[in-house]
């Protein structure tokens, strides 16, 4: 049983560019959440997708957007990248009614 997978593993982008990160949830899970983790800090909630709609959103600007597909996989898009967007981006999946959230290995984004 595959767990949560994320791609790519690492990414280097230049300020002003756009980036797309991908997440495949654990088999049987229908809810995907995205988190940003800066160095030395705990993860910060970006948003959550359920039934292909954004259900909750954290305190992140509109430059951060997402999508969930019918197969429950999800994408995180960040436009107009800033140096401060450099972080580990984590995807978590869950089965809505069971609540337990499982995390993927993350995508390390470096903005230069």
């Amino acid at each position, binding site marked *: 049983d595959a767990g949560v997978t994320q791609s790519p593993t690492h990414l280097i982008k230049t300020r002003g560019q756009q980036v797309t990160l991908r997440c495949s949830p654990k088999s049987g899970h229908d809810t995907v959440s995205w988190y940003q983790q800066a160095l030395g800090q705990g993860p910060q909630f970006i948003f959550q997708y359920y039934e292909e709609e954004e259900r909750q959103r954290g305190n992140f600007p509109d430059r951060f957007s997402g999508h969930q597909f019918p197969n429950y996989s999800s994408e995180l898009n960040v436009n107009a990248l800033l140096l401060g967007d450099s972080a580990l981006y984590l995807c978590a999946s869950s089965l809505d009614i069971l609540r337990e959230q499982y995390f993927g*290995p993350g995508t390390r984004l470096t903005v230069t």
Partner: protein
Amino acid sequence: SQELEQSPQSLIVQEGKNLTINCTSSKTLYGLYWYKQKYGEGLIFLMMLQKGGEEKSHEKITAKLDEKKQQSSLHITASQPSHAGIYLCGADTGYSSASKIIFGSGTRLSIRP
């Protein structure tokens, strides 16, 4: 807004010794997660506690949630090098279904051989 405070921030323990990490919430918890993270990697789910007074164990790790559901502790017995990493507690903010998790800043655990 809800905040979680973890203590200590870092911990160095002799291999074989026991240790405890604490997590205190500013509000009553609907649920409390414990995760382990190796440096720069994803979070490994350890356990989730939901009921006041609940206690769960997995191998040599035991987590408890107090009766008032505002404090949790993670206890490791007979520590091993494999226990080294960052331990994160997270507050489940959802009332009835999977919801955003608010994390503490983590406790960095090192095991001295």
